């Protein structure tokens, strides 16, 4: 384990890498300098806090505390997924429901099959991975819905005029949006190990674990992300398309 410890000095020196992107921003007049420093500051502060919080939770090893930590992760993921929805009539509770179901169903299957153990050091990172990927998938689904309802407004109106209910009028847009949300996970499953060594596997290899053993975990992660992004996108999509209509089954002006 000592071999992978990063000294404070090394970490400080690696800050030079941030200056590379600052230099690019300055040279190309991208106007991103402030944003880069802000995001780096946030990342450092967030990670320091999370580091100490996780150390505490793992030390205490209490099921309730672990559960609260997973809720905290889910809440943040839902908050960010909801922010990515361009619809002004978006509903935060919908993102929460999608994330809770998607995360806990996936986590439940992993626990029942004894793939992971009910230990904070396993549950918390896995929850983070599940919720993070679901958040991205849900954001994609929300954006695809917005594009669909914008570009196919006339078609939705015609379906309503023919007597379709809001679900029937939205079905083609909804299907395409869920597909758009799930596609990146499916695509990355096809290239996993060939293009990139994903985080879980890399982490284990870094820690000195036999790569043949590490791939087992990565296979589990692939299964888990397919389930989580699928569930998250389906639930978020089926809840969110209704936000484009009012109570009288009329397409809202956006």
């Amino acid at each position: 384990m000592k071999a992978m410890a990063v000294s404070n000095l090394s970490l400080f020196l690696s800050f030079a890498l941030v200056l590379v992107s600052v230099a690019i921003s300055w040279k190309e007049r991208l106007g991103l300098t402030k944003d880069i420093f802000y995001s780096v500051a946030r990342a450092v502060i967030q990670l320091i806090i999370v580091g100490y919080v996780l150390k505490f939770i793992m030390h205490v090893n209490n099921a309730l505390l672990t559960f609260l930590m997973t809720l905290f992760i889910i809440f943040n993921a839902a908050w960010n997924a909801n922010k990515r929805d361009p619809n002004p009539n978006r509903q935060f509770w919908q993102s929460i429901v999608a994330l809770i179901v998607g995360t806990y169903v996936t986590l439940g299957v992993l626990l029942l099959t004894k793939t992971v153990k009910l230990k904070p050091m396993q549950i918390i990172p896995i929850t983070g991975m599940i919720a993070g990927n679901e958040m991205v998938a849900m954001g994609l689904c929300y954006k695809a819905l917005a594009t669909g309802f914008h570009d196919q407004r006339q078609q939705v109106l015609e379906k309503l005029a023919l007597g379709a209910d809001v679900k029937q009028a939205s079905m083609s847009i909804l299907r395409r949006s869920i597909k758009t949300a799930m596609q990146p996970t499916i695509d990355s499953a096809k290239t996993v190990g060939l293009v990139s060594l994903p985080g879980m596997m890399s982490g284990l290899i870094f820690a000195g674990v036999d790569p043949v053993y590490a791939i087992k975990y990565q296979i589990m992660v692939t299964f888990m992300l397919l389930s989580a992004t699928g569930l998250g996108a389906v639930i978020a999509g089926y809840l969110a398309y209704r936000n484009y209509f009012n109570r009288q089954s009329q397409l809202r002006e956006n």
Partner: protein
Amino acid sequence: MALIELKQVAYQTDKQTILQEVSFALEAGDYVTLTGPSGSGKSTTLKLIAGLISPTNGQILYKGRNLVDLDLVPYRRQVSYCFQQPTLFDETVKDNLAFPFAIRKQPFDEERAKAALERVDLSADYLDKKITALSGGEKQRVALIRNLLFRPEVLLLDEVTTGLDETSKAIVHQLIAQVQQEGSTILQVTHDQEELAASHKLLQMEKGGILK
């Protein structure tokens, strides 16, 4: 009791007033034309009656019941709005004619669809045609029969013959006349002289109101 009645109907958006104090009634079997310059609120009136938008003031009654109290999904199957430039869905003519059956959870009746196509002078072979292979006039005819596969009580026609060639226009005129004879009430927006002459009543609109 009138089939449809508009009482002091107004419609405003954030930026402008489109309709103000529009009142008129449609009796069962009526064939009425709304006419007037562009921007006078004709299409908005049809969309309000179709339940696609709601009035900002006033009431629209269907058989004496306010539209705001009705489930608009079954209502729209009875009061059917046809767009000026309709969009056909999915890939084929069949996909479009199957849609009215699908939303009613009924199996697709191919014979009925073929008979409907023949009503607008399109052969049964058209059922499997790609929508991208249709001319403008053919698209409008397919769109119209899509609205008519289950005959509505009221048909709202929004300049459906604008831009059509003479052949398509004549076919559509014949279809409208048949539908009216079969008992549907028709409210149309048109500038076409032949359609104006065919209707029984004329309502002139200007600046968001009906001229007396």
